[in-house]
C-alpha cells in the first residue's frame, strides 16, 4: 500500500508534522486573543480615556450672547424666546449631556484636564485623544445656531497614536456635531417643536446563533488555510522521493506510476483530515467553541472536513504531477507561498470575507478554503443540508477537477534524463 508508505514518510518527519498540526493552533490562540475585543465589538477592548480641556466659560458665553441680543433691539417676544433657547441649546451643555450618555460612557471616559497636563498625558499614551473646547466656543456657536450668521465654532480633537480608538471617538463627536448642525438647519433651536416620527429601524437576525467569536472565526480561518499547506508538503516530499530515486525503484518493481500518485493523494487526504479534526477538537477543548452540541453536529463537521480533505488530496496529486513534470519543486513552493496566500486572503482567512472588496469576494467563493468556511458557517448556524448543497457540490467538483488534472499531467512513463 503506497498510502501507508506516504503516511510513514510524514511520521518520519515529525518536526514538520508537528509544525503542520500545531502552528495553526498557535495562530488561533494568538490571533483569537489579539482580536477578541475588536471582533466582538465589546466596549472593553475599545475603552479609552480622553482628556477634556475646557478653555471656554459657558455662563459668560451665554451672557455675552444675551447682551448681543439686546444690542440688536429685536422684538420683545423674539428676544426672550432666543434668550431662553440659548439656555437650553447651549452647545456645551448638549456636549456634556452626550458625554454623560450611558452608551458613550461604555467606550470613553472623559477626564477634565488643563491643556498642559492633557498634552503630557497624550504623549505618554495615558489618554488616546484630547478634546478641546476653545475660548468663545459657546458664544460663537450660539450666534451661528440661533442667529444664523456665518462663523460658528469648532471643537478640536487632538489625535493620539491609535487610529482604532481615535476613529471611535471621532465617530461619536462627528455624530454630535452633525445632529446639532442638522437641527439648526431645520430651524428647531429657534422654536420649541414636537419631535417628528422617526424610523423604527432595528436589526433582524436570521438565526438565533450567537455572533462568531474571535476564537471560532480564527479556528475556521486558520484551519482551512493551513490545511492547504498539506498539499504543498506532500508534493515536496514526493519530489524528494524523485530525487532519492524512490520513484525509479517503484517503476522497476513494475508498479503502475499512478499508484504512486494515488498514495500521495491518499496520504494528503488522511493528514488533512487528521489536521482539521485535531484543530477543531483542540480549539473546542481550549475555548469551548461548541458547547452542548449533539454527536450528529460533530459528525457533520467531520463530513465537511472529509470533503475539504479530498480537495486537499486533489491538490496534492496535481502539485506532485507538476513537480514531476518540471523536475523541480518550484510548483509546490509556488503553491505554498503565493497560491496559498491568495486563496487565504480571498477566502477570508485573514479578515472576514465580508470586509473584502466585492471582486475579491467573488474569487473567494471559488477557493476551496472559502467554500469550506461558508460550509462550516452554515452548519454551525444550523442551516439545513439544502442550503449547503451548492457549496458542497462546488467543493466536490474542485476535488474531482484537481485529481483529474493531476492524473492527466502525471508523467506515466519516466523519461531518461
Amino acid at each position, binding site marked *: 500500500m503506497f498510502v501507508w508508505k506516504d503516511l510513514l514518510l510524514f511520521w518520519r518527519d515529525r518536526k514538520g508534522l508537528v509544525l503542520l498540526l500545531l502552528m495553526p493552533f498557535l495562530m488561533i490562540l494568538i490571533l483569537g486573543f489579539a482580536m477578541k475585543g475588536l471582533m466582538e465589538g465589546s466596549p472593553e477592548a475599545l475603552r479609552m480615556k480622553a482628556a477634556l480641556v475646557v478653555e471656554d466659560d459657558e455662563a459668560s458665553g451665554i451672557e455675552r450672547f444675551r447682551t448681543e441680543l439686546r444690542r440688536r433691539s429685536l422684538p420683545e417676544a423674539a428676544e426672550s424666546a432666543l434668550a431662553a433657547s440659548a439656555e437650553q441649546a447651549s452647545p456645551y451643555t448638549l456636549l456634556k449631556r452626550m458625554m454623560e450618555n450611558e452608551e458613550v460612557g461604555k467606550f470613553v471616559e472623559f477626564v477634565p484636564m488643563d491643556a498642559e497636563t492633557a498634552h503630557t498625558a497624550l504623549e505618554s499614551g495615558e489618554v488616546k485623544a484630547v478634546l478641546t473646547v476653545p475660548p468663545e466656543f459657546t458664544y460663537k456657536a450660539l450666534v451661528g445656531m440661533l442667529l444664523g450668521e456665518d462663523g460658528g465654532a469648532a471643537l478640536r480633537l487632538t489625535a493620539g497614536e491609535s487610529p482604532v480608538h481615535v476613529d471611535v471617538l471621532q465617530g461619536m463627536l462627528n455624530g454630535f456635531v452633525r445632529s*446639532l448642525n442638522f437641527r439648526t438647519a431645520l430651524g428647531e433651536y429657534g422654536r420649541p417643536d414636537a419631535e417628528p416620527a422617526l424610523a423604527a429601524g432595528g436589526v433582524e437576525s436570521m438565526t438565533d446563533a450567537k455572533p462568531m467569536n474571535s476564537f471560532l472565526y480564527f479556528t475556521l480561518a486558520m484551519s482551512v488555510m493551513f490545511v492547504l499547506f498539506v498539499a504543498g508538503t506532500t508534493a515536496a516530499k514526493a519530489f524528494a522521493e524523485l530525487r532519492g530515486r524512490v520513484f525509479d525503484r517503484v517503476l522497476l518493481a513494475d508498479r503502475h506510476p499512478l499508484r504512486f500518485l494515488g498514495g500521495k493523494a491518499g496520504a494528503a487526504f488522511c493528514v488533512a483530515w487528521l489536521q482539521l479534526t485535531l484543530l477543531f477538537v483542540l480549539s473546542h477543548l481550549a475555548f469551548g467553541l461548541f458547547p452542548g452540541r449533539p454527536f450528529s453536529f460533530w459528525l457533520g463537521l467531520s463530513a465537511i472536513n472529509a470533503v475539504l480533505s479530498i480537495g486537499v488530496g486533489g491538490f496534492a496529486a496535481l502539485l506532485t504531477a507538476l513537480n514531476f513534470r518540471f523536475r523541480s519543486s518550484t510548483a509546490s513552493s509556488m503553491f505554498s507561498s503565493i497560491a496559498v496566500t491568495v486563496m487565504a486572503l480571498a477566502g477570508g482567512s485573514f479578515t472576514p470575507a465580508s470586509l473584502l472588496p466585492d471582486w475579491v469576494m467573488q474569487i473567494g467563493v471559488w477557493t476551496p478554503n472559502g467554500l469550506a468556511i461558508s460550509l462550516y458557517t452554515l452548519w454551525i448556524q444550523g442551516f439545513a443540508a439544502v442550503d449547503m448543497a451548492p457549496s458542497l457540490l462546488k467543493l466536490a467538483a474542485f476535488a474531482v477537477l484537481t485529481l483529474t488534472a493531476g492524473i492527466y499531467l502525471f508523467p506515466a512513463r519516466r523519461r531518461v534524463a
Partner: protein
Amino acid sequence: MIAVFLAQWQKEKRSPYAILLFIALGIMLTIVFGMGAAKKMSYAVYAGDGLEAPQAAEWVRLLNREGKFEFRLIEEERALRDVREGRAELAVKLMAEDYRIVMAADNPANREVEELVRTVYNEELQLRAAAASADDPQQYLEDVERRLRQPPLALEIEAADGGEPVRNDMSLQLLFAFTLYTVIMTVGYKVNAVMEERSSGVWDRMILSPLRKTEIYLGHMGYSFCIGMTHIAVALALFRYVFGFPIGDRYGMLLVVAAIYTIALVAVGMLLTGLTRTPEQFGIVLQIAAAAMPLLGGAYWPPGTVTNPIILAVSEFVPLTHAMEAMKGIALQQYGPAELAAPLAKLLLIAVLCMGVGINMVERRSH
C-alpha cells in the same frame, strides 16, 4: 567568494523562470490587493415590503451620498443568501419609511453601518415631516439646504504636534506588507540553495576546494541578498513610478530599510537551514513561518488593533514588524534617521542573532 556568487548567477541564468515567476507573481499579488484595499466597504441593500423601485433608488442615493460606504441595490434573494453563507456581514432591507438590518448573527461590529443608515433615515424623515408642516415646503427646503451649507459647529482634527493628523493609508500598508511578505519567500528560496548543495554533494566538493568556509557562506548569502534587494527595489519602483502609489519621495531611504530587512531575512534563512535537514523541509518550514509573520506583526490590520502585550512582545522578534514600521514612517510620517534608528537597530540585532545561531547549527550538523 566571488566564484560562489557567480556560480549561483550561472545557475540562475540557465533557468531563470522560477525566480522570475516568483518575483512577478509576488508583485502582482501586492498590486492587486494594494489597489483593492483602497476601495470603500460595500454593502447590499434590497427593497422589501413592496417598496417601489424609484423609491428604493432614492434611498440608495441618499445612503451613498454619505460617501462612507458603498450601498448596492440587489435582489432580495441574493442578498439574503450572501448573509446566510457568511459572505456578507449584513444586508439592509429598505422600506418606505423604515429599514431593517439583516444579519446572520447579531454582530456588534456592524454598529457603524446601522448608525449611518439610522442617521440618513431619521434626517430624511425629519426633513420630510418638517417640510410638510411648513407654510411653503419648497421655500423651507431651500432654507434648510442653505443653512446646512454654513453649519454653526465643526470638528477639527489635529495631530499631537499640532499638524495634520497622520492618516494611516491602509492600501499603502498592505502594499508594504505584501512586498515584505513575498520577499521572504524569494530570499528563502535562494538561501535554500545552501541546503540543496549540501544534499546534492556540491557542498562537500566546495569544502575540499581551496575556498574558505567564510567565502562559501558569504557568496551564498551575498547572492540571496542581491536577489531579495532586486525584488524589493523593482516592486517599490513599480509602485511609485508606474502605478503612482504615494510612497513618498524618499525612495533611497526605503531602499536602505529594504537592504537591512533583506540582511535580516538572509539571517533568518540561515537559521532555518540550521534547523532543518532537507531542502523540502526547509521550504515547508519557511512557508508556514512566513505566513505567520505578517499575522503576528499585525500587518494586515489597522495599527492599534492588536493590544495584547504578549503578542506585541512576540511581534518584536518578527523582522517584518520593524521593516513595516520603518517604511510606513518614511512614507507617511517623514521619519528621519533619529526615528529610524530604533527599528533598524532591532533588525540588525535579529540579523546578527539568527546568523550566528544558524551558521553554528549548520556547521555542527556537518560533523
